[in-house]
């Protein structure tokens, strides 16, 4: 037997190690960081991002990329808010139907995204980027630039009601994380994501309907974006075009930092959880120790490059496009 600390083992556990080191570092710099109150704050900022990042994780496992999350989140948030208010404005009425409606809208946008990518044979990054702009524009068309307030106490309970010091939205996020884990490990769809990402030709030669898998993947991602949109609205009580802003950078950074390979086949939702926590711990920790915002963005950018460098066996890659 060789050393236990092989490169593979190191690469596998590196994200978790980084997370622990970061937490210890910030705790040493500023004891207030290491408090349940602050961890709850990290949880609140992580929950919507985790949902969006899980959605895009499936796409990246397939070896594609989805950049439509900002538009999708905005559309879902705005449609949800309008429907919620129109149907009564409180979860105690029929307005709860706005929740599944938002998920349906997310699925529809994802489906459209997948169809454009597969049927028109447009590379996924371009198809989804374009669809994202369409979504943002559509959200702006719906709101006319206004903010829509969602002030139902029951719905805002996502943020305000706390169990064991953590708001309900954290538990909702964990529940969807477990659902995503189930899909990843226990369903044919999850297995197919890995097969397509690990060897598309082979998946095809095994009789898999690769196009169908791709379209379903984008649809599923859309549903998770919608969940992210709901949590984002729950967090600030406002739905607007800008609800989706910044999700693209945060979610893709998280997925990559968590150790899911950009060329597909490797990684999973637990990696993404670690990645989201790393990103949010850094953001939070820098605020706590008093560094300005632009430093945070810079650090995150450097972190992404470091993560890719660490996880790539560069000897086996000849050309990078």
């Amino acid at each position, binding site marked *: 037997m060789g050393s236990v600390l092989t490169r593979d083992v190191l690469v596998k556990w590196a994200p978790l190690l980084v997370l622990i080191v970061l937490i210890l570092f910030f705790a040493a710099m500023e004891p207030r960081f290491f408090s349940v109150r602050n961890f709850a704050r990290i949880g609140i900022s992580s929950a919507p991002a985790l949902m969006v990042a899980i959605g895009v994780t499936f796409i990246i496992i397939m070896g594609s990329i989805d950049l439509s999350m900002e538009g999708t989140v905005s559309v879902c948030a705005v449609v949800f808010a309008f429907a919620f208010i129109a149907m009564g404005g409180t979860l105690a009425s029929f307005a709860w139907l706005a929740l599944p409606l938002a998920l349906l809208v997310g699925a529809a946008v994802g489906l459209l995204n997948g169809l454009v990518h597969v049927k028109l044979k447009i590379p996924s990054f371009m198809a989804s980027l374009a669809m994202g702009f369409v979504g943002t524009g559509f959200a702006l068309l719906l709101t006319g630039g206004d903010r829509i307030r969602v002030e139902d106490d029951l719905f805002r309970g996502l943020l305000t009601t706390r169990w064991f010091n953590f708001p309900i939205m954290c538990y909702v996020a964990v529940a969807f994380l477990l659902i995503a884990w189930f899909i990843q490990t226990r*369903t044919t769809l999850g*297995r197919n994501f*890995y097969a397509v990402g*690990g*060897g598309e030709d082979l998946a095809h*030669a095994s*009789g*898999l309907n690769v196009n169908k898998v791709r379209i379903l993947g984008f649809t599923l991602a859309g549903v998770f974006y919608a969940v992210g949109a709901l949590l984002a609205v729950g967090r600030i009580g406002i739905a607007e075009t800008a609800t989706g802003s910044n999700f693209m950078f945060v979610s893709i950074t998280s997925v990559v930092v968590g150790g899911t390979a950009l060329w597909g*086949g490797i990684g999973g939702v637990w990696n993404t959880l670690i990645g989201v926590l790393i990103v949010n711990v850094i953001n939070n920790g820098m605020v706590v120790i008093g560094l300005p915002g632009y430093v945070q963005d810079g650090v995150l950018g450097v972190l992404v490059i470091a993560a890719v460098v660490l996880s790539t066996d560069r000897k086996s890659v000849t050309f990078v496009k």
Partner: protein
Amino acid sequence: MYELRKVDKKFPGVHALKAIDFQIGRGEIVGLVGENGAGKSTLMKVIYGAYQADGGDITIDGTKVRFQNPRQAMDHGIGMVFQEQSLITNLTVMENIFLGFEQQFVSFGVINWKDMAQAARNQLAKVKLDIDPATVTSRLSFAQRQLVELAKVLTLEERVDGDLVILLDEPTSVLAREEVELLFSLVRDLTSRASFIFVSHRMDEVLELSDRIYVMKDGEVVDVVAQAEANVDDIQHKMVGREVDKEYYREQKQKPYRKEAPLVSFKDVSHGARYQNISFDLHPGEVLCLVGTEGSGREAVLRTVFGLETPTAGTVSLKGQDVTRFNAQNGVAAGVGYVPRERKVEGIVGGMNVYENMTLSQMGNYSKNGVLRISEEKSLARDWIDRLSIKTPSEYKDCGGLSGGNQQKVVLAKWRSGGSDIILLDHPTRGLDIGAKEDVYDMVRDMSDDGAGIILVADTLEEAIGLSHTIIVLKDGIEQIRYDCEPGNKPSLFDLVHHMI
């Protein structure tokens, strides 16, 4: 003037070149023939510097040389015209001709296109090609591209002192008959400028063009014949000249196939230029072997049976049902299993473990409403790991980490466990060691006994002869001859080679 003496080349497990002596004189055209795997391409790679010889000497005009890479070989006047054309199709003809050597036209960092075009025109004149050097390469015909490629190699004339040796690897494979004639007369004219080494599967062309012919077999030069004495039959005998080991290929286990309803039936099936008017029936228990050179259409036939290619004419039926929509899903549903040549690309998914790979083509059998029954998958995997004695620590092992032979067993288990009874094997033993090959032969016999029909594209002719009940020889997409191969009455290697090339 250019000479190889006792050149040796070994790869892990293969002695690819054994003490090769080879020489070529000024203005000479030398032919190189041999079966697939005889060592022709390895020899060529040594000559143009892509491989370094392990032993022996290479001399030019008596001076010893050693090339670390093709660029160094080019600096000594050795150029290669590639079979798969090496031109970059989105660049213009002149850019291609001077690719990597633009510096001569550059002043102050700016390329003088006029000079380059003039220089390119001079090169094109050598190959008698009258086209505008600013044409984008993708707009040329294949024959024209071949000539541009030759012109590119001929730029060595200006760059290098001394003589040129130009290798032509299957230059005629994409050309029509009259284009071949043009190319040959051009090559004869160019012997005033260079010597040529000509490699082709088409024996008649080699005989027509070459002054001398080197015949290779199993990594050795078995004979050198001058054009005047050359005779197709003799050369073909020398290329093979081996007995098929009956034991090795499990010939004693070969049983007659069942002459009942065929599993696969081709009736006058054509696929564009790939193959024409192919007809055959594959019966339960039959091993049908498609024999031919690379590009003879054998792979295309396999891919058609699986549904990866849609034929342009004729009827294909699987188990009595005419196939109307050709796609892999329908193929799998009809019970076809495909074991592709590129195991790493199309055979197993590295990163997925043994049981995940085995159920990849049949997840529907192990799931309900999309939810997998993983414990059943695992017991299936354990069962087949035992049955085929797959060497893996457990069913959780990443398939990418298994040896080639064991990967191949996983692929076969994938199809057999899913109930596939039409198995397409494309070079199933490529890259396997001898023990693993014998395992594959045993599996082939076992599958026949179970009533599966197998279409085989074998790695070697011996393998084809040893394993098959029926052999169809293809050449340029057309059936040449068909042999029934009962044990004891099999065609010889010579019979096959004779019809292949």
